[in-house]
């Protein structure tokens, strides 16, 4: 009753093909976007920006990227952290070398550079499958992190081995560096994530997306019906790395401000993003957002409850947090292995019938 797709008639092909064909979906999405763009910037403060909204947007972008590769094309990758590092270092080098360049262009160029690296590390996927591929992608993770540690050119020979983002302005307002106002960095990330989420949504229901899904469901059968595996797999690696590279660039330039390969882009980050898409739902754009929201907000919430309310020491809370996250992950996988997106699908089904049982 509350969620209806009946009675929503289309009279033209373009209306039938639009991004959100169901009126209710459309209204909800536009409503959320309007709230995020028009209301949140006026309410945001430093705490919400740094510990909730920016991490959510950055990780949502990374989850989108990995979901394209793992959820839609079926290639499990544990190299996300390494690719984010590529995006971050590309962003840093571009920011330093071309100070006049618009930040949007810098982030997108960083993504494009990561896409090229991603294609190179995606080459083994043509021969290796399944878990063997997952472990093989760890090679890119460790190699890239090692590379950014050992080659001084990447961090411009700085003594600490860290990179830190210089201040860049957009329309006269600083967007990176310590002076950037919270609403500016937030709007910058939100704009990028919104645009590229729409692109991803349309990409996966088009020809390329269908070829990815064919490869995911059974690559030999897909090859027989005329989907070129080389093109499909490598394009998935390219697009996925593009997104992940952009998220790495945003993580470094807007959220952290300075980065160091081992801590910021270690193997833990690769697992984190993989968790996000599995908890959110493999092969679902909405799922990427839900998973990112769940795994960035829950630790903040847990920490607030345990340290803030009960006054437990921080190390104990950290251990308990680890334990609870592990337990929650197992719980979710047992209850709903297809993730939060599937939960939402089931809820929609219920809402359609409610309050009548049949």
């Amino acid at each position: 009753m509350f969620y209806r797709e009946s009675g929503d008639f289309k009279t033209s092909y373009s209306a039938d093909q639009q991004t959100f064909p169901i009126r209710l979906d459309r209204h909800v999405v536009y409503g959320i976007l309007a709230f995020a763009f028009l209301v949140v910037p006026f309410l945001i403060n430093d705490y919400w920006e740094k510990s909730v909204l920016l991490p959510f947007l950055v990780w949502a972008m990374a989850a989108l990227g990995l979901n394209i590769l793992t959820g839609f094309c079926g290639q499990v990758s544990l190299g996300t952290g390494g690719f984010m590092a590529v995006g971050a270092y590309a962003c840093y080098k571009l920011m330093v070398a071309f100070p006049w360049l618009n930040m949007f262009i810098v982030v997108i160029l960083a993504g494009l550079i990561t896409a090229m690296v991603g294609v190179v590390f995606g080459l083994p996927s043509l021969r290796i499958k399944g878990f063997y591929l997952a472990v093989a992608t760890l090679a890119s993770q460790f190699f890239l992190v090692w590379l950014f540690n050992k080659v001084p050119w990447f961090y411009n020979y700085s003594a600490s081995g860290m990179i830190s983002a210089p201040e860049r302005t957009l329309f006269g307002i600083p967007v990176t560096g310590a002076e950037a106002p919270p609403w500016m960095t937030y709007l910058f990330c939100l704009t990028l994530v919104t645009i590229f989420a729409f692109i991803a949504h349309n990409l996966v229901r088009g020809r390329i997306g269908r070829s990815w899904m064919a490869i995911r469901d059974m690559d030999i059968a897909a090859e027989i019906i005329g989907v070129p595996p080389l093109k499909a797999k490598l394009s998935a690696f390219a697009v996925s790395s593009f997104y992940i590279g952009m998220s790495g660039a945003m993580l470094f330039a807007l959220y952290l401000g300075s980065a160091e390969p081992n801590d910021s882009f270690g193997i833990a980050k690769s697992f984190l993003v993989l968790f996000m898409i599995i908890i959110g739902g493999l092969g679902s754009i909405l799922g990427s957002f839900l998973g990112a929201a769940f795994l960035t907000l829950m630790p903040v919430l847990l920490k607030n409850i345990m340290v803030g309310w009960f006054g437990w020491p921080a190390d104990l809370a950290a251990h308990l947090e680890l334990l609870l996250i592990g337990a929650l992950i197992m719980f979710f996988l047992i209850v709903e292995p297809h993730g939060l997106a599937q939960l939402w699908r089931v809820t929609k089904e219920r809402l359609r019938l409610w309050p009548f049982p049949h």
Partner: protein
Amino acid sequence: MSPELLNVLEVIINGLLAGVMYSLVALGFVLIYKASGIFNYAQGVMALFAALTLVGFQTGQIPFAHVINTIFGTHLETWGPGLPTFFAILLTMGVMVLFAYLVERIVLRHMVNQAPIILFMTTIGLAYFMEGFGDLMWGADIKTMDVGLPSGASTWFETMTAGWATEGSNYPGMYVDMLDVAAAGIAILLVVVLTLFSQYTKTGRALRAVADDHQAALTVGISLRTIWVIVWSIAGFVALVAGIMWGAKSGVQFSLSLIALKALPVLILGGFTSIPGAIVGGLIIGVGEKLFEYSIGGMLGGATENWFAYVLALFFLMFRPQGLFGERIIERV
């Protein structure tokens, strides 16, 4: 022999010994993968947990002392002088069996027929859980483990190899850690025992049947659940051995759980389904990374051990996508 050649030989010997340590961890992975098709990422954390528990029993720590102290404001530390090593090991083994039973009972039972990636993620969740649980139970400080294994340089080996060098070259002899040698010995013993167990006992035969075909095993009356508890217990035992070895080598601390990452390239190199593969893969990787670090690593800025194993494994996979000894992957449409 010239000192250079002896140096290379020393690197190779140390590489072989390190490889045995990698194999020890990889072995646990292979056992579980063969029997249940689960790629158990938690193996490294299981080793950490086993080592923590063993040290806890040995020194007589009270479990969850830190938590109890925080909540009730008490100052509990230990309940006594601790147990002798032998009993502590037995008790730890008991804990690992209990753990295996609980994992089967609470988690795995619900995960039958799920996609392998979901099972894999479950074990990562399990790894997080156990890490937090272990830290809460025994505290997160670095502990030293002493179970009476020999350690330090082998002087006998040093003087013997010093004599091999050409006259007047002042070669000091090879450095070999006694602990590594002991670990190699125990690993060999472990493999022999496991092989005998799986070849000549009734349970071992049931294990192999389950590994071969779940459904067929069920139809001849093998209880999958019992088998899974047994397999996880054995993996817990292997984790305990690995935990003792690695713990004695580098202290019992969080980084112990990262040995899982060292075992992964060994696994894909040897093949997920092969116990000899885990051994040979470990040896190849151990020697390969030590030789690479010795010969080329210095030029690249060192610390190549982090990634070289993966690249080496990747290179092998290009030619044999199922690993050196893995079962041939047959795909049908």
